């Protein structure tokens, strides 16, 4: 089963010195994403399956094993979804995902 992810509109985000800084506008919690997480975040358009994002954006750039990378990505996305800064679904997400900063 595919997993789809989309950036929440209730956040503020900016790239700073190669890292993505994200603030939840809901509770002002701050998150810093590393390079790999930033690639996933940027590709979270709601319509590209997570496994394809990992294959095309992560495995293509970083030396990671695909199955392990997919498992890690799902954990990471679930954590961000728990803070309300990422939407996660088993079907494409029809939302107004903003262009990645």
């Amino acid at each position, binding site marked *: 089963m595919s997993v789809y992810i989309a950036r929440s509109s209730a956040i*503020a985000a*900016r790239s700073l010195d190669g890292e993505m800084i994200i603030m939840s506008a809901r509770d*002002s919690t701050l998150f810093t994403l590393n390079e790999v997480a930033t690639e996933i975040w940027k590709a979270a358009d709601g319509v590209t399956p997570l496994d394809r994002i990992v294959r095309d954006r992560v495995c293509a750039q970083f030396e990671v094993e695909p199955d392990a990378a997919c498992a890690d990505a799902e954990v990471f996305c679930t954590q961000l979804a728990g803070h309300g800064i990422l939407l996660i679904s088993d079907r494409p997400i029809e939302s107004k995902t903003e262009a990645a900063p």
Partner: protein
Amino acid sequence: MTSDIVVEIGGVPVLLRTADRALGKIIGERFANFVTSRPSATPFEMTLRPDLEGAPKRRTIRGKRLGAGWQFGRCDFHAEWSSETGRGVIRQEAGSGYPADAFLRIFHSLLLPSQRGFLLHSATLVRNGSAFAFCGVSGAGKTTMCRLAPPEVTLLSDEISYIRPAGDGYRAFGTPFASDLGRIGENVSAPLKALYLLAKGPQNKSEPMSRREAAASLLHNAMVFTDDAEISRLVFEAALDLVMRVPVYRLTFVPTPEVWETIT
């Protein structure tokens, strides 16, 4: 007969109007350095009414949008103003200057983000024409840094700094917002040269912070009196803009005058 007092902070004038002449005198004295008879722009007009009856019962210090304006308050006042008309009302306990002080703090915290600035929980002082901000939670040493400052240093605020972009950098403005034990700042401004995150320690040491750390610390100390997502987003952008242009240091210090030798 009313008292009209214009309090201008950061170049933003607010006219406080009251029919209570004694209250007018209290406000005039409280904000003395910031009262002007020649405002630099058309002032926002706030009418102070000594009646809390009929005001919303559930008052929160955190601003909530009200149509094209805002409302907020606490046990001793309730304020509403319209951004469209530039006018509003402060219902308050009779004879107290505290509601006007609280109103102005919150008012400016809501207004500044749209100008890419913000209020910061920090002391700010001017030395040799440049402003230095000392940031930290209560007890971090803001008032101590003010007390230890050399005599030629000018105090902008010992508690809340008013910071806004200007030219290629940022400018810090004096505010009348003082700590409980502090004194009122001077009504002047200066380019912000550096910002220091305070921590007391065994020796005086100033270390540059990464921009990510600096941004996180600034956001932690930004004064945001609202849960409004748009204001939070603007303050986030403003803090990240600032760390791109102003150096931020972690200042560990011993509370003696020598600490000022590390401030350059």
